[in-house]
């Protein structure tokens, strides 16, 4: 399969590479560029582990061809942290234990990033609607709601709600 030049914006920087037309963006990121933060979780479209942003909106890298994103802006989880500091969304998932095995986490983090750019004060329903394409088999989702609320507070530059104590929970 002949390779073609592809130019796109990757995590904010101009990227020029080569890829054949039949290459999935997921494979290009992981195997072509070594950006293994974007995960593979299923055989196509079922799990959300591969969620990235294309022109600011969440998309599935496993159902996108490199050729389809030429000229567009692609963002992966690697683009979020700066100078070794976790981004607010990453910090939320870390702080609230929104990640256990971690396989789904980059996908959830990217879908949350897209949500918070549009809405810095999401309700539980907003979160459910925005993260509905992502599946997690570990956390039971409750921790993910907590993580997104925490991240949203950081994005609003407010102090996140403290952990409920055992006494709070009993009340």
């Amino acid at each position, binding site marked *: 399969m002949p390779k073609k030049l592809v130019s796109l914006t990757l995590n904010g920087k101009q990227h020029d590479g080569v890829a054949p037309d039949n290459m999935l963006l997921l494979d290009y990121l992981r195997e072509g560029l070594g950006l293994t933060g974007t995960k593979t979780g299923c055989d196509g479209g079922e799990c959300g582990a591969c969620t990235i942003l294309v022109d600011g909106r969440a998309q599935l890298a496993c159902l996108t061809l490199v050729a389809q994103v030429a000229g567009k802006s692609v963002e992966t989880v690697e683009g979020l942290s700066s100078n070794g500091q976790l981004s607010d969304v990453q910090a939320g998932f870390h702080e609230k234990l929104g990640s256990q095995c971690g396989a789904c986490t980059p996908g959830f983090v990217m879908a949350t990033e897209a949500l918070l750019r549009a809405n810095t004060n999401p309700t539980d329903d907003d979160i459910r609607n925005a993260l*509905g394409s992502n599946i997690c088999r570990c956390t039971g989702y409750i921790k993910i709601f907590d993580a997104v609320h925490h991240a949203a507070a950081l994005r609003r530059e407010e102090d996140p709600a403290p952990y409920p104590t055992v006494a709070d929970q009993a009340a």
Partner: protein
Amino acid sequence: MDALHSFEVIRPKTVDEALAARIAHRHSRMIGGGTDLLVNIRRRIETPSVLIDTSDLTDLKTIEHGDTGLSIGASVRLFEVAEHPNIQHFYPAIAQAAGSIAGPTHRNMGTVGGNLCLDTRCIYYNQSEWWREANDHCLKTELGDMCHVAPKSKGVCFATYSGDLAPALMLFGAEIDLLGPDGERTVAMRDFYIGSSRQDGSKGDGINYMAIKPGEFVVRVRASSPGRLISGYDKIRIRRSIEYPVAGCAAALTRDDDTLTDIRIAFTGTNPRPVFLEGTADLAGSTLSDSVLEGIDNLCKDQLMSMKTTFTPGHYRRRVATQMAKRLVGQLFNAAG
């Protein structure tokens, strides 16, 4: 990583360029969001040599709404339909149907053209190549000579059409504009889906389910003005966040005082085509009584033909669809009161 089969991707900027590419490559396929086609390609169910991407076709990215009706371009994304204020207001069934397709990330990708042309589905077909090979290929991939759902089907396939937009659009007498080597033509949506699966071979089936000619593609879909119709969409699925319908139902009606003056019902997820229920006009003219609901029951028994093409049994899907229709009609009738 298993490489996909070799193919070329073309990204035309204008509808004329898309048509030229379509004429130059007879075996090309259009690709919108790829959320259906790329799944099939990954499973080697389909191996087209050229993909023509519709996402740069600016002319097909518009939604127009006016007195005469609604027009939605083939490249419009599903989230745009779901969130469009005029569609939500005048055509709630269409907005609700769009908002119930797959999950939110899929709706950022999936297009109206891709949803209308969604491939029909079956548990013996939507499987990986090794699964299909190990379990004997069936008719639909053209590699087998038998239908596993109905072994005595005499060459007919019953794979289910499960696109959500089609039944909602059908309530408003929608038409599809197609462009191809012979120019542009318009087909009523009810004539576009031909998957009747009659064994006399008179019409199409789960394999041959759209009246689209070689080289043609969808440019837009148009719905007529809703007038006083109030409408809604309901869908039952195994997982509420991301899933094809067990069955989907769109309904619209008008109510004058206590009289049901117009009633329209359409389904997806039941037959190899979206089903616009024939004969509902005879149910109008009285209030929403038990006999109207029984009338819906009888029409559904007659026209819904669910087979064991999904994990839920056919007779269960037909009952779910029927029940959903009666519930939705009841809700709309009350809302209109």
